[in-house]
């Protein structure tokens, strides 16, 4: 019973009846006749379903009809996590994935498995559920043994029944455990099904959310409503750090039902009618203080290099890189730069909050609902035991976009006015105020021996520092509420060293004290820029050695999985072995070229190689990506079609980031605020993407929401170099920048 989200919400109350032996009434669905949204208020169990990840019942509920509900703290942000986790549970339980309903990210129902990030949705979220299911399998076999009067070792589970391996009548699992608790702990040693026997894992089962998304019935957080709810719009200051001087409430008096809410410098309007709230937000006359606190985005690479350093940290030290480079036959150095970028969610963030009696419920698309609940409780003085955060799908977030901020807006407003409030952000606020992926500046130096092998490699990177504590919520800062001011953008130093057999390598991080804007984790944090630098520079070394780019990499790799992704990519692409650039390129005509990049994610996870073909118009500087081939090895493949969808998305989204995206700002405010000033890739620019999945059933599964992003920009830059002889080292590769570089021969 994989059901769409709307059905799930409708059924929300019924789904957890399995836990309601002692307090059935507490679990009844909220029943406003015909109101789907109201039914989404799944009541939190007071003394029913456990949430402790140590218990099987925290993850699984078995129903008398043989269906199973899976609960996971990891959330599906359009990635296919729901179907993949369902497949993993179904495999252990001997049932079809269509018998599973999945509930994700509801702090009242789902165990805390950490935020959904770092490609841990399956490796942690799915693996926890799988282990709970494997434990449950042993318990079901034991129950079946008693019922069937056979030894458990003579039984198996298939088709939803515990049945003798040698044939004969079985007993449905629903009749063994249905609607009762297992009341056992997860056994970390419970045996897992052998991959060779898999029937569900590895199948391209269609995602349950897609039909509802294609027919307008999928419930996003934007679509959720409550009785008596007011629509709100928050008015953010015109400059970062500006404070509210005065508000003229009479300026919105003519707008029906509009009401101004002010808490310190936190300013909002609410109205029963959404359009009235929007009109009031536009009409409201407010005076703000002047603020000029930002460094400006022009020359931010120079600002970053000159900025005060908090500390230096060597994150990789192998041999003596500086000495090896000094003694090398040939040395090379280059600087690469990646700008601040926005998550740029297509739909601005939204949240609904109903705060009362020191607690309440927040509906949010946050990728970390448990963490959000803890932070909201702390900041707004709510009892965490009385506060529930319910995950509802948002527009794709790719990390921490504006979702946590908008949840804080909703909580502060609902708490202040004592009514349920829905707050969506405007396009301009989402693009301007979402926490940003950091700027990254990298200096690379390397030495080659006489045979063209890398003997020493030195990466120095300038990155905004990490400060412990939660990220400050805009609403709380504006309202003058004390809170953490942590700063962090994820594990942004990884993949700064080459994946090749260089005996001497160093990665030195210069942690810059100040961040120009608030930062957060943006898909594959740091790794995209680091691999752009490392794999572009590797190409420069291959050019210096006058060796083909594929051959250069292959010669310095020993890991057979690494070699296989490179070989399979080159073979499918029809790689022509020769050094770059292409000698036949003639000036004036459209220039074509091809590039390759390889990386192992976090130097410990997925192996990915990407080859790309481009055509560059030297007159305009426009780059067309005409073809992409990607070989991808993430170990065991759970759902090949959902995986390919993720890989395709990784590649196209990173092409967007590499070709178009840079957050711009002046001394006061972000100036890239919509799709004209912050353009992203269009359908007309999207190349064919040919994905080769290497399924390794004997290997642990690895996450796949991020890895294929990392080699994209280097493959692109390497292809542009092959086509034009010009090396692009600064993102984005806008037409103006490419044209200028072709003019002077570098960028």
């Amino acid at each position, binding site marked *: 019973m994989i059901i*769409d989200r709307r059905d799930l919400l409708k059924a929300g109350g019924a789904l957890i009846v399995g836990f309601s032996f002692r307090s059935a009434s507490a679990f009844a669905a909220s029943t406003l006749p015909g109101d789907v949204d109201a039914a989404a208020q799944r009541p939190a169990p007071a003394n029913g379903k456990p949430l402790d990840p140590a218990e099987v019942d925290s993850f699984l509920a078995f129903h008398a009809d043989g269906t199973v509900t899976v609960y996971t703290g990891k959330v599906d*942000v*359009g*990635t296919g996590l729901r179907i993949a986790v369902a497949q993993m549970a179904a495999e252990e339980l001997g049932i079809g994935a269509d018998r599973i309903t999945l509930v994700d990210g509801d702090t009242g129902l789902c165990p805390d498995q950490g935020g959904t990030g770092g490609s841990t949705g399956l490796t942690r979220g799915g693996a926890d559920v799988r282990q709970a299911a494997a434990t449950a399998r042993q318990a079901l076999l034991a129950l079946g043994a008693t019922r069937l009067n056979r030894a458990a070792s003579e039984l198996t589970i298939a088709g939803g029944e515990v049945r003798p391996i040698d044939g004969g009548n079985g007993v449905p699992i629903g009749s063994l455990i249905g609607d009762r608790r297992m009341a056992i702990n997860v056994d970390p040693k419970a045996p897992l099904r052998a991959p060779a026997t898999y029937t569900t894992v590895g199948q391209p089962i*269609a*995602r349950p959310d*897609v*039909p*509802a*998304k*294609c*027919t*307008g*019935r*999928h419930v*996003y957080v*934007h*679509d959720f409503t409550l009785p008596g709810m007011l629509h709100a719009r928050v008015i953010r200051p015109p400059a970062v750090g500006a404070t509210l001087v005065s508000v003229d409430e009479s300026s919105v008096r003519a707008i029906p039902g509009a009401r101004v809410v002010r808490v310190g410098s936190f300013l909002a309007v609410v109205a029963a*009618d*959404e*359009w*009235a709230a*929007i009109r009031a937000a536009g009409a409201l006359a407010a005076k703000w203080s002047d603020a000029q606190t930002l460094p400006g985005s022009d020359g931010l690479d120079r600002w970053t290099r000159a900025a005060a350093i908090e500390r230096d940290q060597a994150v990789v030290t192998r041999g003596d890189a500086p000495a090896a480079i000094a003694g090398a036959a040939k040395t090379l150095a280059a600087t690469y730069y990646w700008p601040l970028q926005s998550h*740029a*969610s*297509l*739909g*601005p963030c939204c949240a609904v909050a109903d705060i009362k009696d020191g607690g309440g419920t927040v509906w949010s698309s946050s990728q970390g609902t448990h963490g959000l609940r803890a932070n909201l409780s702390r900041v707004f003085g709510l009892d965490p035991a009385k506060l529930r955060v319910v995950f509802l*799908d*948002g*527009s*794709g977030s*790719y990390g921490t976009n504006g979702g946590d901020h908008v949840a804080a807006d909703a909580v502060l407003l609902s708490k202040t006015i004592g009514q349920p409030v829905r707050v*969506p952000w*405007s*396009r301009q606020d989402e693009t301007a105020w979402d926490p940003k992926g950091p700027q990254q500046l990298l200096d690379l130096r390397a030495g080659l021996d006489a045979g063209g092998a890398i003997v020493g490699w030195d990466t120095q990177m300038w990155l905004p520092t990490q400060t412990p504590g939660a990220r400050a919520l805009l609403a709380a800062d504006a309202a003058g509420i004390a809170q953490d001011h942590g700063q962090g953008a994820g594990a942004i130093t990884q993949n700064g060293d080459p994946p090749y057999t260089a005996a001497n390598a160093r990665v030195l991080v210069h942690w810059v004290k100040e961040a120009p804007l608030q930062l957060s984790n943006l898909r594959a944090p740091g790794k995209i820029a680091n691999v752009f630098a490392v794999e572009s520079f590797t190409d420069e070394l291959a050019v210096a050695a006058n060796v083909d780019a594929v051959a250069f990499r292959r010669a310095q790799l020993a890991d057979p999985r690494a070699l296989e992704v490179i070989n399979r990519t080159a073979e499918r692409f029809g790689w022509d072995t020769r050094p770059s650039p292409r000698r036949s390129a003639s000036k004036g005509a459209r220039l074509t070229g091809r590039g390759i990049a390889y990386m192992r994610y976090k130097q410990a996870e997925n192996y990915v190689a990407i080859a790309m073909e481009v055509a560059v118009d030297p007159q305009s500087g426009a780059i067309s990506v005409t073809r992409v081939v990607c070989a991808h090895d993430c170990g065991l493949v759970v759902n090949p*079609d*959902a995986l390919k*969808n*993720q890989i*395709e*998305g*990784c*590649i*196209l*989204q990173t*092409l*967007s980031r590499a070709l178009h995206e840079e957050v711009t700002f002046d001394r006061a405010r972000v100036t890239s605020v*919509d*799709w*004209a000033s912050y353009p*992203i*890739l*269009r*359908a*007309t620019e*999207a*190349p*064919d*993407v040919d994905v080769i999945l290497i399924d390794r059933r004997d290997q642990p599964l690895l996450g796949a929401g991020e890895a294929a992003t990392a080699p994209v920009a280097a493959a692109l830059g390497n292809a542009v170099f092959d086509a034009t002889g010009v090396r692009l080292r600064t993102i984005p590769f806008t037409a103006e920048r490419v044209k200028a570089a072709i003019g002077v021969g570098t960028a």
Partner: protein
Amino acid sequence: MASYGFRLNGRGVSAESWDPAQPLLYVLRNTFNLHGVKFGCGLGQCGACTVMIDGKAVRSCQTRVDRVAGHAVTTIEGLGTASAPDRVQAAFIAEQAAQCGYCTNGMIMTAAAFLAQTSKPTPEQAKQSLAGNLCRCGTYTRIVRAVVRAARA
């Protein structure tokens, strides 16, 4: 409060609005509870709010409610349901042409209007027809495949 009559997914309806300039987007979402249509930018830049008016793809965030009076509006809910999708919806489902799905409404409505005019598009024409619809997840290749598939259905 003025009242505006129009056809909505095949039936006659009347919407009241205190402001004749209220965009159709909010009337559809809040008066008629049709949540398939999405707010993306409010600027006509992204296409997430696309509906059909008299068979043409239109940005509902840029369309005043008073201009809709007397016309026929079709939303994604009017095309089909999960159990009985129309050919465009069925093709998107078959190609699994969605990730977060927030742009999907606009992609499907734009494609439906396009296919009504161009029955046998090339993949390049299908791509061009979606030039004004943004997808942040990067699902374009599947979306274009779905449009071509729908044309063959």
